[in-house]
């Protein structure tokens, strides 16, 4: 890495183009209380006109590094350079004055304000107090056109989709003439078409001499968009590679530090676990109907059966009744008609405790909101369902020492990485939170597991792990209903696949014979 610190302002213009990076982190180390080293001598640099990807699993130190780049944290060692000069960034605002802007996963927009108001919040091109909507709206449209973004400057943020909001956040940075844009997992909230649009905007930005730092754990898209890739692992920058010179396998190996299993375990191919087709379902739904949150019927005559040891995949585009289906089985939502049977005996709706007692385990889609109680410790979260029966107690008093010992065992078994059983769950990474949920649900020896989007937002390693747990559980005879929008995941793990469309089961196919075309047609309501 060649850093020309001496390049003064006079020579900068000509010299910067290739030599002096727009932004560089040099030997950045960040330690947190409790001895966690989030960044350990991390270095990388992004040139002008370059898309530089930061690739790493959750917990690899990407977020910490970004928080340092945007002035939220101060590095304990090392420094940040902008255009070759060291800078001390004490706040996001100072970073922005150096031209560094971050587009967050949790977008920083004010819902009730218009697009134009959000854009001028905190900084306006015009001096003085006066804010003239029409003028700002014209400027926004002009920038949007230049970067191939479709934007209605007059809309209020709450009216916009997540993809549109992200566009506004980027536009806000461009309005302030951002020279370095940090995009944090930008495609998580985007549809494939929106991702294409984002990528062409990114191309326009780098063509205009800006730099884009692209954070992701999705290998194909990193390869598609980045010029160079810096891989982070366990807080260290492992290496920086040219995107042109690597493939997905190589990247994956660098990211997780060992070779990944070639192709995921596919249940159908594994053979041994596949249950006989005539076996009775452990969970059976017969013509189940249920209403949604707004009193409108969202499930129509859903009939499904999950056999012991089977993974039944539920495919479908989001919002076609998947969440309600999961909630009905878990007892969180009463069904209006039809019957749900567990081991042949009817399960009455709307009673989560009955469902739990009968052996229904549930991994909810909303991990932090429903799956765990973020402000409680790992031990407490692990006990949340078993405290009535299995938790170690003396009379009404819980024996926390023994509960901690139990949870340490579970943490070992499920590879939950935290500072210990007393760590608060909200301090854990997404993958570890999901492992806490799985550990709790599976430790109760369930008959049935309903897993709703169990790998959403998880990195490759954690996703692999969750998949492994699901396959293992099925092998041990648990009937699993896997609800996911990720069709790859459904196809790779399921024995059979049911497709939901507008609250109806439009078809059930054998995973071994399923084709993407067929499933895609069914999901779109065309079959």
């Amino acid at each position: 890495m060649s850093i020309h610190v001496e390049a003064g302002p006079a020579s900068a213009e000509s010299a910067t183009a290739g030599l002096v990076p727009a932004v560089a982190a040099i030997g950045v180390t960040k330690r947190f209380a409790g001895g966690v080293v989030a960044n350990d001598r991390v270095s990388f640099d992004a040139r002008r006109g370059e898309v530089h990807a930061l690739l790493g699993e959750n917990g690899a130190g990407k977020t910490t590094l970004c928080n340092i780049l945007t002035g939220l944290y101060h590095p304990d060692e090392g420094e940040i350079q902008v255009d070759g000069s060291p800078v001390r960034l004490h706040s996001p605002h100072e970073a922005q004055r150096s031209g560094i802007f971050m587009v967050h996963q949790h977008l920083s927009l004010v819902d009730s304000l218009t697009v134009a108001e959000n854009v001028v919040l905190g900084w306006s091109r015009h001096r003085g107090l006066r804010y003239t909507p029409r003028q700002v709206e014209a400027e926004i449209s002009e920038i949007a056109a230049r970067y191939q973004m479709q934007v209605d400057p007059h809309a209020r943020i709450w009216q916009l989709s997540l993809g549109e909001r992200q566009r506004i956040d980027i536009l806000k940075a461009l309005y302030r003439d951002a020279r370095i844009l940090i995009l944090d997992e930008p495609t998580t909230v985007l549809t494939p078409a929106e991702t294409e649009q984002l990528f062409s905007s990114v191309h326009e930005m780098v063509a205009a001499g800006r730099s884009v730092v692209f954070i992701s754990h999705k290998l194909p898209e990193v390869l598609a968009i980045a010029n160079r890739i810096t891989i982070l692992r366990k807080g260290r920058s492992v290496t920086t590679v040219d995107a042109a010179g690597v493939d997905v396998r190589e990247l994956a190996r660098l990211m997780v530090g060992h070779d990944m299993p070639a192709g995921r375990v596919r249940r159908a191919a594994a053979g041994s676990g596949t249950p006989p087709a005539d076996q009775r379902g452990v969970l059976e739904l017969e013509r189940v109907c249920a209403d949604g949150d707004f009193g409108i019927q969202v499930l129509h005559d859903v009939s499904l059966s999950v056999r012991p040891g089977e993974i039944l995949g539920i495919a479908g585009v989001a919002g076609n009744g998947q969440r309600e289906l999961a909630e009905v089985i878990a007892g969180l939502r009463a069904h209006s008609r039809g019957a749900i049977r567990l081991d042949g005996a009817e399960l009455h709706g709307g009673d989560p405790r009955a469902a739990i007692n009968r052996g229904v385990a549930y991994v909810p889609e909303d991990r932090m909101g429903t799956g765990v109680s973020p402000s409680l410790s790992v031990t407490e979260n692990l006990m949340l369902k078993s405290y009535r029966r299995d938790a170690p107690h003396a009379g009404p008093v819980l024996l926390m020492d023994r509960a901690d010992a139990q949870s340490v065992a579970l943490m070992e078994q499920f590879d939950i990485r935290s500072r210990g059983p007393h760590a608060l769950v909200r301090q854990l990474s997404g993958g570890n939170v999901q492992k806490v949920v799985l550990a709790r649900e599976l430790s109760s020896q369930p008959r049935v597991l309903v897993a709703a989007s169990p790998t959403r937002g998880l990195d490759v390693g954690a996703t692999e792990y969750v998949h492994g747990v699901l396959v293992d559980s099925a092998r041990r005879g648990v009937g699993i209903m896997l609800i996911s929008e990720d069709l790859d995941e459904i196809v790779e793990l399921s024995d059979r696949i049911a497709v939901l469309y507008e609250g109806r089961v439009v078809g059930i196919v054998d995973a071994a014979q399923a084709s993407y075309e067929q499933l895609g047609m069914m999901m779109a309501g065309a079959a």
Partner: protein
Amino acid sequence: MDQFFTSSILTATVASGIALATPFLLASLGETMGQRSGVINLGVDGIMLLSAFASYYVALRSGNLLLAVLAGAGVGLLMGIATAFISVTLKAEQGISGIGVYLFGLGLSDLLFVKLVGTPLPIASLDSFRIPLLSQIPLLGPMFFQQTVLVYFAFLLVPVVTFVLNRTTYGVQIKAAGENPAAADSLGVSVARIRWSTVLIGGTMAGLAGASLLLYDGIFQQNLTQSEGFIAVALVYFGGWTAWGVMGGSLLYGLVGAVVLAWKSLGIIPLSASDLAATAPAVLTVLALLSVGRRFRQPAVLGKPYERGD
């Protein structure tokens, strides 16, 4: 009833309704600014009381009503400083600290009144200012254009507050601080500074409200406001956090109050029921709040202190 529907009584009633609405309007416009930025100040009534006393005392000693108004505003500003320090800097629970500010104002104004004045003496009242030409219009002139300067000032503030909230960068920052302070913070907007400023404005306006109430009554007494400051807070909800809505609420409240007064003096309401009738504006406001208030969404972080996350 017929005696009420004469043009002279009706115009006088409307005129006094507008005058009665003025303290509410001043206080609730200021409270609107604070609430839009995310701070709820329940101490308005206490601020009004203390300011009313300051106005009264200055008027009594100096005879100068301009000084009296300034004293009210000044005490309001001081109380605003205290409120901002408690609510913004110390990040206190605003529902509780506001009640503390209220009780402080209630108690201190009474104590000072007893210690410094003792026997209540009336002060000169603020002369009404007849706006040339406009005040000559039949009916409308006596209703609207023969009021005191404080009334004109309060109503002129309505478009001013609207403009500030919607057409200035300061207004955008206020709204952002009340809706998503983290976003504002990340863009270099100091949430604390914005909230300090709106709470100071709110305090000053509550001070002016106290002064205008005092000058309308012409004399101070214990608990002069009779909790009007709390009504002013409610009117902010009623008005959907907009200046025009707040004005509508204040006028409704003032006019109903004026009608009740007129009916009492005309004997339409018997003396025995007069206490009951005095509750009419409050009852009406509650009913109106129930029907209108829900259409509006309150600022997302109203009453929540802002702490920078990790």
